[in-house]
């Protein structure tokens, strides 16, 4: 399996990365080399193997349903680029 430059461009767009033509070319090469490495796995018969969701053989710990977070919005908003009426402000997004 290998990726075309167009596909890499699409992936970059989805990740909101702006790549120059040169970067696109070198990234395509790099990604294909990584995929080539992973491709060795295709030689193994994995039919009876359950896909792994996590490398640790442990299960998720569950938390009791208790509220113990305090309102720290003032602190958090000190690092926001823009705030107003207690809201985080972003350039207008309208459907």
């Amino acid at each position, binding site marked *: 399996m290998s990726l075309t430059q167009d596909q890499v461009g699409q992936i970059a767009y*989805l990740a909101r990365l702006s790549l120059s033509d040169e970067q696109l070319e070198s990234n395509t090469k790099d990604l294909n080399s990584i995929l080539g490495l992973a491709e060795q796995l295709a030689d193994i018969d994995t039919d009876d193997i359950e896909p792994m969701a*996590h490398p640790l053989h442990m299960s998720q710990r569950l*938390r009791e*349903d*208790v509220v113990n*977070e305090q309102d720290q919005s003032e602190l*958090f908003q000190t690092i926001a680029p823009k705030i107003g009426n207690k*809201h985080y402000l972003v*350039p*207008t997004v309208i459907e």
Partner: protein
Amino acid sequence: MQWETVIGLEIHAQLSTKSKIFSAASTKFGQEPNSQACAVDLGLPGVLPVLNKEAVDKAIRFGLAVNAHINQRNVFDRKNYFYPDLPKGYQISQLDWPIVGEGEIEISIGDETKIIGVTRAHLEEDAGKSVHDMFDDYSAIDLNRAGTPLLEIVSEPDMRSAKEAVAYAKKIHALVQYIGICDGNMQEGSFRCDANVSIRPMGQEKLGTRAELKNINSFKFLEKAINLEVERQQDIIEDGGEVVQETRLYDAVKNETRSMRSKEEANDYRYFPDPDLLPVEISDEMLENIKSELPELPQEKKARFINDLGLNDYDADVLTSQKSLADYFEIMLEGNTSNAKLCANWVMGELSASLNKNQIEIDNSPVSAQDLSLLITRIGDDTISGKIAKDVFKAIWDGEGSADEIIDAKGLKQMTDTGAIEAIVDEIIANNAPQVEQFKSGNEKILGFFVGQAMKATQGKANPKLLNELLRSKLS
């Protein structure tokens, strides 16, 4: 051409937990903007999501209630997309290993019943809220809702009309409230429906291209939006065009659906298992515990109303269609087990009519279940007749007091004094010789005339049963 409509619904039910699905921030509605968005909800670096046990518990409850397979091992994934109200750049959801697998639920439309398949139900976190009209050049983001637990319930494309879709949505709506996992408040967005709608020529197996309708926040709008969309698709195809797969927004004000965003390009979410969360293992013990604590389900309650109380199918169906209605009815029953049918008639008749007329929900009924229960008791023990009871009901509604107080104050107590009624009956018989003749010559119907006269003379207070007996014995 004859078209067949095919509908599948995706319902987002907000699980009624105190804290969020992955953080210990409060989920309370209507608080000051961003006051309940903690570091985890904001996706600040270095935070770790920890799953809320109660959210898992409630999802399982739903699965059990629709007879679904519970996946005792399930996995959280990241669904990647960019939007300002999604701080992390991904939503934690479940893709390949959802907590609830295939199940089913029965719906009724008129006399017909139909089984609708539930494909799956998975846990996920809600996004924040964008406010577009607060500032001219900015969208304002409130992240209080970010991280609120949702159960997304996906149906099979089993519904064939807007009516069926509404019946299914209402059924799920009632169910989540019965089992106490969601408050069902559609205005506050605790229960939201998206509809996948497509059409195909009648008899064709292959599904048509579907459009996904979003932003539907009432059952009425659900029906309207689907019908609009079916019409739109028919027009397109009959004009030789093709339906494109897209997301469409329902606009209740303009009563139209319109294309929402060119979501096609962005519709690549690149799901992968969330490395911050380990697979969830649900032990047999936890599953058994939840099973044993599951409250009576609507269908079980309905069966009990039919079998134990002798109600008919229709009555039992209506009374169990909403948890609040069933609760009301059951409180009434406490003092009136032998008058179940009478209780049912009053709830579905006089009470429902008055509530509808005044557009009041049963939870806010001016006549409480206890009030109505006492009224039924007074009909049952012959203190008042059913007819007088309607006046008493109205007085209770208007806040004039309890049934007993009103009966006393207005002197509505039924006449059960045989002697007094007898005197009136004698007088009526003496004054209406022609009608007496008619009765004697076999005109049974004329009895109604005498009953009417006696009721008139007693302002409706004569005990009907006693009166009938006396009339019959005197006349024959």
